[in-house]
């Protein structure tokens, strides 16, 4: 047993054509027992950037509050919204500060920058950033997600196609992970709008 799989959860983010999507399951459990089914691990930080925090739920919630605070302070100081790339550096340095007493999370950042260029990245629990131009995954379903995303992701998906791809990738992955599932939520971020959809999924 590890802190990373104590509560369970899965998050995935993908880049499409001028858009990004980030999705999460909604299970909150304690080891094999499911406690709640309305706990998304993805949180909005600004209108066009989201952070996913799969891992130990106590740390997920603590960090969400820290990032909300820090992003708001950034906005007050800079008089502008934080860019997703800047946000990822903020998350990264917050985690590396705890190099020898880390939070047990596997953060993902997804969003569009001020020129509406897509940005996604993942980090390990001490803030090593992995920036890619296709997809990033995290949580207990990480290995499942890696496999299916390598197969189904393709470049330049339109928002609606990206939605189908990320949804199917997530649903298939969490069906083979006992620690994740019980509903899922997907955010598709485009320059014009953010589409948030709750998916129908197996509830076992």
């Amino acid at each position, binding site marked *: 047993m590890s802190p990373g799989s104590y509560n369970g959860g899965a998050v995935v983010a993908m880049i499409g054509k001028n858009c990004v999507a980030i999705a999460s399951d909604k299970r909150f459990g304690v080891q094999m027992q499911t406690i709640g089914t309305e706990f998304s691990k993805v949180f909005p930080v600004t209108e066009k950037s989201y952070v996913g925090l799969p891992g130990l739920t106590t740390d997920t919630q603590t960090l969400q509050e820290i990032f909300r605070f820090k992003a708001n302070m950034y906005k007050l100081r800079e008089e502008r919204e934080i860019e997703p790339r800047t946000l990822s550096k903020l998350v990264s340095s917050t985690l590396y*500060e705890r190099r020898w007493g880390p939070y047990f999370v596997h953060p993902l950042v997804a969003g569009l920058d001020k020129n509406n260029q897509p940005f996604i990245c993942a980090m390990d629990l001490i803030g090593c950033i992995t920036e890619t131009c296709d997809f990033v995954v995290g949580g207990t379903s990480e290995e499942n997600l890696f496999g299916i995303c390598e197969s*189904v992701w*393709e470049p330049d998906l339109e928002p609606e196609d990206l939605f189908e791809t990320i949804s199917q990738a997530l649903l298939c992955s969490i069906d083979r992970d006992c620690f994740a599932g019980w509903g899922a939520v997907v955010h598709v971020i485009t320059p014009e709008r*953010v589409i948030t959809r709750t998916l129908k999924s197996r509830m076992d």
Partner: protein
Amino acid sequence: METNIIPRKGGFNFDNYKRNLFLEQKGLTLPKVTKTGTTIVGALFKDGVVLGADTRATGGSIVQDKDIIKISYIAPNIYCCGAGTAADTLFTTALISSQLELHRLTTGRQSRFNSAETMLKQLLFRHQGHIGAALILGGYDINGPVLAHIYPHGSSEHHPYITMGSGSLAAVSVLETRWTKNLERQDAIDMVKDAVEAGIFNDLGSGSNVNLVVIEKNKTESLREYSKPTPHHPKNCDYKYKRGTTAILKESIKDLVVVTDGEAMDIS
């Protein structure tokens, strides 16, 4: 909570240390951090230095990143390859790089290789090996081309050719057979490329592409993806899902307002 949100001056935070130690004693295994796996190589040639690295990052047995950049910028004339804990190599080199930038702005002089080396080794020694960064530092300053390796515990040595990381056992064979004094630039590049490729193919922790940086007098050239020895074979057909495949329970759309700059205020 308060300690978490008050902006700190810097330095490490050990608030969670006791909690995590408690969890560890309870029998929980702590999650794996991203390692570079890594084959990193450096070699001196006639009038410069070449640094080379593979681009794979691993977490346990998973390839976390297929195209990570392991050669970090330290100064315009100094670059550094990192092996070991990925976060440690990245943050350590970034920290020293920013200190050197400030030093250059203060003194108005080119950064010295020795400054970078000393700052890195003293930082690593202070942390007694807990910062898992194994570095190859290469640069060109008033003393000509220089190459050194720095171990996580803070020891450093100068050598004409160096390799570190899990792929070093494969790479060292290439260097030991091919390195000679006063190599030509292209020969040095080829040798370093082949040494990194030896790591990519023979070491499981190393993979993907070869990145190179060539540092010469007043000239630094970064050769990203100098060699791609493991090309990706594209799929013959795709798995695109038909729209409507996924059943939706609820949908909410938030329209974003596009803010454009208005006309400038008349201040004449």
